[in-house]
Structure formats: structure tokens, C-alpha cells
């Protein structure tokens, strides 16, 4: 018997509750699931993984800073020295938007429901008077808060490490656009992969194939297929001029199209809303059979 177990055997009278239960809207229910999930998500092993992933660009920025402190050039394109804000732009596109954001989207998005099912804690959420879709949306919002809290500060650290003080006033608006783009990228990839996680049996494999197979291949090819990628629209919104330093980037440059910003935003939000809606529908209808 534990210290907290009383031995007196005294009965506690069952009295009716005096509290008032209110019927919650879908969004109120989502917000409460968000409150429940945020702490668990923030202090999970996945956050350590995320910390390591976003720590990479910070480390790289520190190295670049050290190299430049000694008067050397960290990056040259076509013999031209690229420094400060230019390197920051390359890192935003090559590291954050093309790698880190899809990786985090895949690993978090596909696990939104899978973690609860694997841990068998989903029962507690599905036996409450809230729509199952609100569970998914609440957990999606927790994913956003969690990734924003870790990724956006790391982008700012990289910016302040790489961009000289004299360039800060002129480039700061561009940083804000970058932060907005990264937030949008996290939301859209997260929305798409939350659907993948809800619908498919092996969501991680499918997510990785989409992010690092389909998107990479299709973006390098001419034609309309690239419109079925997220990177295509994110790429068009990047404010930095991309350096071209080889045949591949030359070819890419030839095929590169830049749809108008409003079109990109429309499609990105359409992807986000559409896939998140589909994911909630799947969760509403799906049976989750917990392993005994």
C-alpha cells in the first residue's frame, strides 16, 4: 500500500456536480486539445530531434562567421564572393525551405494521431464529447506552436550571425518575409502530412517519398506537374535571388517559372485547408484499433 492510500475506509458521499457543462464549438474543442497536447509535444523526444535539425544551420552560420572574421570568403559563386545576407538567403532556400521544413512536416505531421494511437492514449480523447476532427486540429495547432517556437528563433539567430550590422535596416523586412514563408511552409507541409498520417498505413515512408522524391524530381522537370508540389509555390515567394553555379541550376533556371505571389498564396492556403479538412474527415470515420 502506498503512503497516499488511506486505510480508514471512510466513504465519500456521491454528490451531484454543481458545475455547468457548456457545449463547445469545434474550434473551442480544438483549442482545449491544443492546451492538452502542447506540453506533451514540446517535451517529447521529437523536439530533441527538431533541435538537432535546426541546430545545423546555426552551427553553419557560426562557422561562416568565424571564417569571415579571419577575412576569408565562405562562399563563392561564379568567382563572386557571396557574403552576409546572400549566404542567409541561400540557407533559407536550400536548408530551411527545401530540407528542414519538409522533414519536420513529415515527422510531426504523420505522427499527430499515430503517437496517440501508439501510446494508447487516444482512448481518453475519443471518449469525450468533442468531435474527433477537433482532436486532429488541436494537435495540428500544437504542432504549429511547437515548430514555430523552435524553428523561427533559429532562423533569427542565423540572420543575426550572418548579416552585418550595417545591412540590418535594409534587410530586416526580408527577414520578416522569410519568417512568414517558413511559418506558411510548416503549416502547409504539416497539413498535407497530417492527412497522409491519418489515411495511410505507412505514412512516414509515403511522406518522405513525397518530400524528397516527388517534389525534388518534379521541380527539376519542365511541365505542369510541379504545380502539384508545395515547394514550387514556396520557391516563387522566396525574396532572395538564388545563385546559379552549375549546369543543374542553369537548367532549373531555364525551366523555372514564377507564378504571381497571390496565386502562390492561394494554392498554398488551398493545400493547407483542403488536406486538413480531408484529414479531419478521415479521423472522424476511421477506426483506431489499439494493439493488445
Amino acid at each position, binding site marked *: *500500500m502506498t503512503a497516499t492510500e488511506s486505510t480508514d475506509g471512510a*466513504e465519500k458521499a456521491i454528490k451531484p456536480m454543481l458545475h455547468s457543462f457548456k457545449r*463547445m464549438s469545434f474550434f473551442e474543442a480544438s483549442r482545449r486539445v491544443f492546451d492538452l497536447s502542447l506540453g506533451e509535444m514540446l517535451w517529447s523526444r521529437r523536439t530533441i530531434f527538431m533541435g538537432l535539425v535546426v541546430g545545423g544551420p546555426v552551427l553553419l552560420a557560426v562557422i561562416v562567421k568565424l571564417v569571415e572574421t579571419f577575412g576569408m570568403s565562405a562562399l563563392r559563386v561564379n568567382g563572386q564572393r557571396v557574403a552576409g545576407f546572400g549566404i542567409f538567403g541561400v540557407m533559407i532556400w536550400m536548408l530551411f525551405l527545401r530540407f528542414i521544413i519538409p522533414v519536420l512536416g513529415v515527422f510531426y505531421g504523420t505522427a499527430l494521431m499515430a503517437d496517440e494511437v501508439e501510446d494508447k*492514449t487516444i482512448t481518453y*480523447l*475519443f471518449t*469525450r464529447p*468533442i468531435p474527433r476532427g477537433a482532436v486532429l486540429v488541436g494537435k495540428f495547432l500544437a504542432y504549429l506552436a511547437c515548430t514555430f517556437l523552435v524553428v523561427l528563433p533559429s532562423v533569427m539567430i542565423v540572420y543575426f550571425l550572418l548579416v552585418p550590422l550595417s545591412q540590418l535596416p535594409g534587410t530586416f523586412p526580408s527577414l520578416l518575409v522569410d519568417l512568414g514563408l517558413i511559418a506558411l511552409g510548416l503549416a502547409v507541409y504539416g497539413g498535407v502530412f497530417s492527412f497522409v498520417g491519418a489515411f495511410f498505413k505507412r505514412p512516414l515512408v509515403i511522406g518522405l517519398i513525397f518530400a524528397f522524391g516527388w517534389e525534388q524530381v518534379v521541380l527539376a522537370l519542365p511541365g505542369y506537374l510541379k504545380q502539384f508540389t508545395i515547394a514550387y509555390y514556396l520557391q516563387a515567394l522566396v525574396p532572395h535571388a538564388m545563385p546559379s553555379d552549375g549546369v543543374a541550376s542553369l537548367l532549373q533556371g531555364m525551366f523555372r517559372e514564377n507564378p504571381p505571389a497571390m496565386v502562390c498564396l492561394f494554392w498554398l492556403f488551398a493545400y493547407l485547408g483542403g488536406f486538413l479538412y480531408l484529414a479531419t474527415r478521415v479521423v472522424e470515420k476511421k477506426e483506431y484499433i489499439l494493439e493488445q
Partner: protein
Amino acid sequence: MNALVHAEGVSKWYGQVSGLNNVTVSIPPGITGLLGPNGAGKSTFMKLMTGQLKPSQGTIRVMDEPIWGNPAVFARIGFCPEQDAFYDRMTGLEWVTALVRLNGLNDADADAAAKRALDRVDLLDAAAKKIGAYSKGMRQRVKMAQALVHDPDLLILDEPLTGMDPLMRRKTIRLIKDWARAGKHIIVSSHILHEIESMTSNILLINNGRIVAEGNVHQIRDLIDTHPHTVYVRGQNPRALARKFLSEDDVLSMKFEKDAVVVETARPDSFYARLTELAASGEAGQIDEVQSPDDNLQAVFKYLVKQ
């Protein structure tokens, strides 16, 4: 309300495996025990009646409403699942509060309701402790607390006494009976007849996914008593426990396991009564866990199915 739960021709298959087979049953108000050996289909039936699973065939209604895809009904239902699964980083109070907030209570009311529920299961002193640091019995009780925190009309408890020490078992049984006396309804599953019988005489016997018998089960009780009943008792001093057990003639045989003693008894009633007194007196040291494997019950079910 005529029936709390009404199942009509309900079957559930997991691929090729049958979990429940053409079950038609009406569970009346009050306390009903769902008794069957492990793997009999108790948990599948409970998952169906809590809308976690959809019947492969047939219909199931809870409190006159369909349960699948109808979350509003959960305002009136509390469910304590079998699995030992938690958000281990949260404290008991945080967890129960967060869950009752999903029932629509505001922050202050949710906090008050959670404290009340934890008090009801004697866990208020440990409310600020992380669930990860709870003992098995405490984890069972915090699960009970989240099930009854919103004052539901129907409590569905899947093996709620597993892992509890004898005193806590007695208290939990009393809590369940009090809940019923307050006009609420309870469906409780177990693989131990002795446990179920101490709560209600209204029992559904389930085996191999079928309802084998329902109603008052004194005859089955007599039948079970003819089979030796195995009880696993884990405590701080197994040898002292063994000495105490051997002092009466209700023990048929005994063997030692790590920190535990496994007893075979022909009279489970008197043995459990003695065990509770022993735990309360502390004469044979602290008793941490009591379990009853269902081998003996399985034998009775085989006998019943042959009939």
C-alpha cells in the same frame, strides 16, 4: 430508459479474427458485470459500446442513442480503459483537469471537479505528483478519476481493479456501489467472478466472443467454487504471508515467485476476506498487488460451453 446498452446482432472482426460474434443483448440499468477470461471479447464489447470501434455487423445503442460517430453521448458516459497508458509527464491533477476541460468545463470548475474526482479515489495527496511516478494501483485510480470526473450517468470500467492492493480494491468496490446507489449505472468487466460478485449479481458471461449466460449467476458461482482458484499476492514479505495463509484450511497449495506467493484456494470468499484483513493489519508486511489468473475460470467456461 429500458436498457442502458442494446446490442442487436453485433459482430466484430479484426481481419480474419472474430472479436465478437452475433451478440444480441440488452444491459439493464444498475450495475452489470461483464465476466469472461482474457481474450473472451470483453474489451471488444466495451470498445464497441464506447464508440471506439464500429460493429462489422449489427447495431449498438447506448442510452437510446447510436454511439458510433456520436460524441455528444460522451457527456453522459465515463470510460476507464484497460490499458495502462498515460501522459506520464503530467501530474494527476493536470491530466484529469485537462480531460474534464474537454467536457466543456471552464478552468476553475475543471480544477475543482478534478480535485473532487481525485479525492473520491483517494489520490488527492498525490495530485501534484507526475503520473510517471505513480504505482500501478495509483495509475488505476487516476484512470478511474478521469472516468468519473464529469459525473457521468453511465460508468464503463474495463478491469478497474487490476493491480490494486486489497484495501484499495475494497474501497473501489464500495465507490462503484455508492455510485449505483446515487442513481448512476455501471458496466464493469473482470475475469474474476469474486470481484464482480462483490459488486453485483447481474452478470453477463462472455466467452469466445459470445454471450454464454446472463442474469443472476449463483449457480455459476457454485460451479466455479468447485474449481481451485489461483491468487497471486505480491508483498514485501512473501514468507510471512505464506505462514499466515497456511494457518487456515482454505489454502490447497502454494508456491513462491519473485517477491510473491501464488496460492491455490478452494474457498476464494474466505481467502479474500482474510487477505483484506491481513493487508489492513500489516501483520505480514505490506501487500503491493493481488492478481487472479483466469485459468480456473477458463475451465468453467469450457464446461459451460459443453453444456
